[in-house]
């Protein structure tokens, strides 16, 4: 019984943890711009992240290797170093965006000056990480993020055209504005399959000392957690489609996204939405800052781990402290969190192939995986997604330039 309970708790936390600032921004904007026409991208992204995080979790449980161990072992030192640098830059950008998001959400709740709130938010996160055990961090932010369920209620209350929404779930090409449409496809996939999620997930699995016994848990976590995360994404896109598209509003602030719950549900909806956003981006900022530290430590072979005391993994600890400080500096320059998010998501897409290829390779290695190596389904999906990721990665930057960051 308690095992089922624990599983449920874990999944709840995963659900709250799936949505981050990239999902918020891209899903709502896609709805505001193209209505229901991009809904089909969400399930594709969700299945992709399920396939790869299940694989990462399995690799971690059986071979005790985290993602960046695999990257360095498999793609060669030079390519791995390139991947490391790219992923560190993207992680830092994403972290800064999430941190900015925390400050904005706090500002929308308190009305205090934004700059103070940046410092306050970062110091708060630092102290939480330093003194709180990780289980609690995950729970607090995961459950808080569940407030985002308010968007599902809001979406239904706005009575979307379900027929059209259903049609939007079928992949198709639009009549006009194909470039911007393609840009959004890339952004939505990037937001759903952000690499930091797998870095974080696999390192966590190694730390929690998963064994093959935990593979069921791994699968359930991946499928249910990310599946429900996709549900949130759909809700967000629907609010964009129902509320903003008709009014010609292009969301450029986190506040706009919260407005999507305020209009149909009033004050309670608004507060729940902001609190949900606060915890979702707060949790994601912790995940990103740790991912940066995991990757560097694994690449260099240092001791690492959030479950170790800070003194037992010194350079790992130092790394996340430095990343935290750099994040504050970036946000304090006044760069807009939503703009930063867009860049972070699009650039993260570029780091995807060299993150996923090594996982696919190790997951097929008999010597490490034995009978837990990839089955046919995982391999077919893994390979198909690798191709998808490659196409997306190659087209991401050109599309961003051609569409002037989605402006058309």
């Amino acid at each position, binding site marked *: 019984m308690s095992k089922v309970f624990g599983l449920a708790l874990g999944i709840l936390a995963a659900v709250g943890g799936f949505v981050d600032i990239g999902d918020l921004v891209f899903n709502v904007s896609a709805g505001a711009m193209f209505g229901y026409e991009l809904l089909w991208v969400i399930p594709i992204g969700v299945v992709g992240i399920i396939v790869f995080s299940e694989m990462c979790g399995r690799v971690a449980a059986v071979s005790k290797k985290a993602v960046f161990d695999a990257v360095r072992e498999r793609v060669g030192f030079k390519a791995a170093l390139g991947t490391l640098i790219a992923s560190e830059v993207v992680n830092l950008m994403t972290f800064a965006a999430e941190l900015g998001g925390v400050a904005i959400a706090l500002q929308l709740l308190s009305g205090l000056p934004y700059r103070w709130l940046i410092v306050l938010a970062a110091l708060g996160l630092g102290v939480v990480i330093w003194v709180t055990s990780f289980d609690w961090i995950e729970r607090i932010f995961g459950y808080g993020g569940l407030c985002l369920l308010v968007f599902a209620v809001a979406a239904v209350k706005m009575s979307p055209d379900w027929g059209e929404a259903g049609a939007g779930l079928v992949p198709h090409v639009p009549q006009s504005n194909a470039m911007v449409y393609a840009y959004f496809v890339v952004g939505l996939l990037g937001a759903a399959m952000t690499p930091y999620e797998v870095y974080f997930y696999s390192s966590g699995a190694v730390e929690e000392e998963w064994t093959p016994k935990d593979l069921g848990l791994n699968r359930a976590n991946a499928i249910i957690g990310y599946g429900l995360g996709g549900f949130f994404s759909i809700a967000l896109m629907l609010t964009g489609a129902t509320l903003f598209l008709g009014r*010609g509003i292009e*969301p450029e602030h986190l506040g706009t996204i919260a407005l999507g719950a305020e209009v149909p549900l009033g004050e309670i909806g*608004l507060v729940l939405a902001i609190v949900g956003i606060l915890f979702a981006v707060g949790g994601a900022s912790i995940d990103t800052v740790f991912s940066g530290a995991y990757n560097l430590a694994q690449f260099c072979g240092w001791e690492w781990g959030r479950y170790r005391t800070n003194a037992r993994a010194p350079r790992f600890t130092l790394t996340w402290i430095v990343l935290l400080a750099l994040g504050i500096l970036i946000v304090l320059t006044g760069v807009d969190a*939503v703009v930063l998010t867009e860049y972070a998501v699009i650039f993260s897409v570029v780091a995807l192939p060299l993150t996923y290829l090594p996982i696919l390779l190790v997951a097929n290695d008999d010597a490490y995986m034995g009978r837990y190596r990839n089955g046919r389904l995982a391999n077919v999906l893994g390979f198909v997604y690798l191709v998808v990721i490659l196409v997306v990665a190659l087209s991401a930057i050109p599309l961003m330039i051609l569409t002037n960051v989605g*402006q058309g």
Partner: protein
Amino acid sequence: MAGRTVPLVALLILAGCNGGTVDRHALENDRKTLDSIACEGALVADGVAHDRTTVVFARVHSDELRIDASNFADALASRATEPGIEREVRRTARHAARIAGVLKRLHEHPANRVVGAVTERSLEQLAGGCS
């Protein structure tokens, strides 16, 4: 997600048609974005008018939108334009300034339902209709 042309970003990625002189395409884009800002402001104002929002949210968010609008007003008032469209560009700049002015009023009276109703109407008018 359109419209925002942060100078830093424009510098970082040497791309986009909004960096130098204002051409017709850029002007069209900016107008669309201004309508978007005004309509979003109207939505916030509607929340104030119907007591559906929190005071803090209305105050903070209307200010965000005001900053956007007045950035447009400043940029369109001073940037070089393509020949033939300068008058239109300057007119749009004044239009943006008016939107910013209304949003400022909302920002200063986020708890006043009457101001909410009035600003909602003006913003919708400035946007040329919102739905």
